[in-house]
């Protein structure tokens, strides 16, 4: 087999899929795993080895998934009964607190739990809602008092809120209504690198909000920093209908542009190639942390890092292998991510671009065209069409929407989005060097965002632009 890694990744994914669908005895699985491992050792030089390797990888997928389903005895979901009295919970803030609809929201790592009946150390994660805007930061240690709830059905777009949260290891929601029920302890926990990334993010956010106003501010925060929560619902809805909402989520497209900007910037500083690549890898990881390390960003960052390493080692990087490494990297960390919509869409779009685009291009003989301009336009249309072909099934299934306008919309919106990202980073850079010029960049950016919304509004008015399914 020319490329074994994608095939092994597929087998691993199948293992995860079966682990969440069928009941397995974990002890028996470990026993089987050992037997197949020994058999594979004996067949190292025989063609049978491949078969045993597939079985081993399949079992590994099941075992890793089963392990994530087994919770420690002191896990919060094993201790509490949510009909009880309010709980007093000690722990630390595990995500950047977000403020929306007069509520402050963040993920909370639980350390200790107390109520009338229980007082013990515990583990697990909660999603916390506090009334009003609270000045909290990542890593801050808090004692909170409130009621715990199971996640409810989210909305008609996302299947179930509980599935979405369980993919992130969250089983309960804690609501704290009173200010007196929040006690801030002086201590700080959590990763120093994440703290640094989030501090940098807050600084950039302040800088953007100083220069821009609604709606450019909200769109730029989403496109550059992954702050999707602040996007007005009417813009989000508009872009879902035209299937261009992916530009508002930091993904491969954004990471690709950021890699280009970083390498270009380092090149301008006249460092040598080796140093440029060595420096751009930590910069990309930092950007991934700033944007919240969502699945699409993580996938794109791992792929970019693999590519850069390949370049460093003077080896031709293979897109299918790097895609497989990215997939394994995410799934070994958290096998539940296989069922995450963002994960599925992200990989489906890249696979369709990598696989379908060259095939369709060859069928239509586009490379033989003599008019250069027409060739570029047709190639861009094909890229958009391939991505749409690969993702439209998933979008129809999850979002109950089918958008024929997507191909045309992406053809117009993607170059504009690239321009907005370049201008956004230029605005941030100019603010450090020549702050006096920032209003000029801000004015251009506001106009470009206006154009982006305008194009989407116009396209949506076209006949048969989109259909609601079901």
């Amino acid at each position, binding site marked *: 087999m020319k490329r074994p890694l994608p095939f092994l990744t597929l087998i691993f994914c199948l293992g995860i899929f079966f682990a969440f669908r069928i009941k397995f005895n974990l002890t028996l699985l470990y026993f089987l795993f050992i037997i197949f491992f020994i058999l594979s050792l004996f067949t190292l030089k025989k063609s049978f080895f491949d078969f045993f390797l597939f079985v081993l990888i399949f079992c590994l997928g099941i075992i890793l998934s089963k392990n994530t389903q087994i919770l420690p005895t002191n896990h919060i979901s094993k201790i509490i009964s949510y009909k009880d009295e309010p709980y007093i919970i000690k722990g630390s803030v595990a995500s950047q607190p977000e403020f929306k609809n007069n509520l402050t929201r963040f993920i909370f790592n639980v350390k200790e739990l107390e109520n009338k009946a229980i007082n013990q150390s515990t583990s697990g994660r909660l999603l916390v809602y506090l009334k009003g805007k609270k000045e909290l930061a990542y890593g801050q240690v808090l004692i909170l008092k409130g009621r715990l709830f199971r996640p409810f059905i989210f909305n008609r777009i996302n299947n179930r809120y509980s599935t979405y949260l369980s993919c992130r290891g969250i089983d309960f929601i804690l609501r704290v209504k009173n200010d007196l029920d929040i006690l801030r302890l002086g201590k700080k926990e959590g990763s120093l690198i994440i703290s640094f990334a989030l501090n940098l993010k807050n600084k950039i956010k302040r800088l953007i909000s100083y220069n821009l106003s609604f709606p450019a501010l909200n769109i730029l925060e989403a496109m550059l920093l992954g702050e999707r929560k602040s996007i007005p619902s009417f813009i989000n809805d508009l872009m879902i209908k035209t299937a261009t909402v992916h530009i508002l989520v930091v993904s491969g497209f954004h990471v690709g542009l950021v890699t280009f900007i970083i390498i270009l910037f380092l090149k301008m500083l006249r460092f040598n190639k080796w140093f440029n690549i060595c420096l751009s890898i930590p910069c990309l990881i930092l950007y991934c942390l700033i944007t919240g390390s969502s699945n699409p960003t993580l996938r794109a960052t791992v792929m970019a890092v693999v590519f850069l390493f390949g370049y460093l080692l003077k080896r031709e990087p293979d897109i299918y292998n790097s895609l497989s490494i990215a997939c394994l990297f995410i799934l070994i960390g958290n096998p539940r991510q296989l069922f995450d919509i963002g994960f599925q869409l992200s990989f489906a779009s890249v696979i369709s671009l990598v696989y379908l685009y060259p095939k369709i291009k060859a069928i239509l003989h586009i490379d033989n065209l003599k008019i250069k301009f027409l060739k570029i336009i047709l190639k861009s249309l094909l890229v958009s069409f391939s991505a749409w072909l690969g993702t439209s099934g998933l979008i129809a299934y999850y979002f109950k929407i089918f958008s024929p306008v997507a191909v045309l919309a992406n053809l117009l919106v993607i170059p504009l989005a690239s321009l907005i990202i370049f201008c956004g980073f230029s605005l941030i850079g100019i603010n450090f060097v020549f702050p006096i010029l920032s209003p000029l960049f801000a*004015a251009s950016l506001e106009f470009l965002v206006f154009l982006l919304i305008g194009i989407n509004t116009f396209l949506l008015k076209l006949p048969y632009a989109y259909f609601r399914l079901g």
Partner: protein
Amino acid sequence: MFDFTYQERKVILFLIIVALFGSLINFLNKYSSKTEKNLSYLYQNLGKLNLNTVDEETLIDIPGIGKILANRIIEYRHKNFYFKSIEELKNIKGITRLRYEKIKDYFYLP
């Protein structure tokens, strides 16, 4: 004279054109207050729906509005000779404070 590479030249030109375009917009805003007003009005309302002309089908498409509520909104519009402010939505049966907060951003009034 300048020892710029091809890529550096492109970056410089990009920055110049963005700054120039921004200054043109600023100039237009300063030149006529009407332009500034129109631009800021457009920036705020583009993509939103005109509450006084929106049809039933489009209303149903908004998350939080079903067929019954869409009918009530259109009925209210006919009865009261159009909406005078978005806040009037609160007067319609079925639009609670929470629902109003959720849907108000979808509309504008010219």
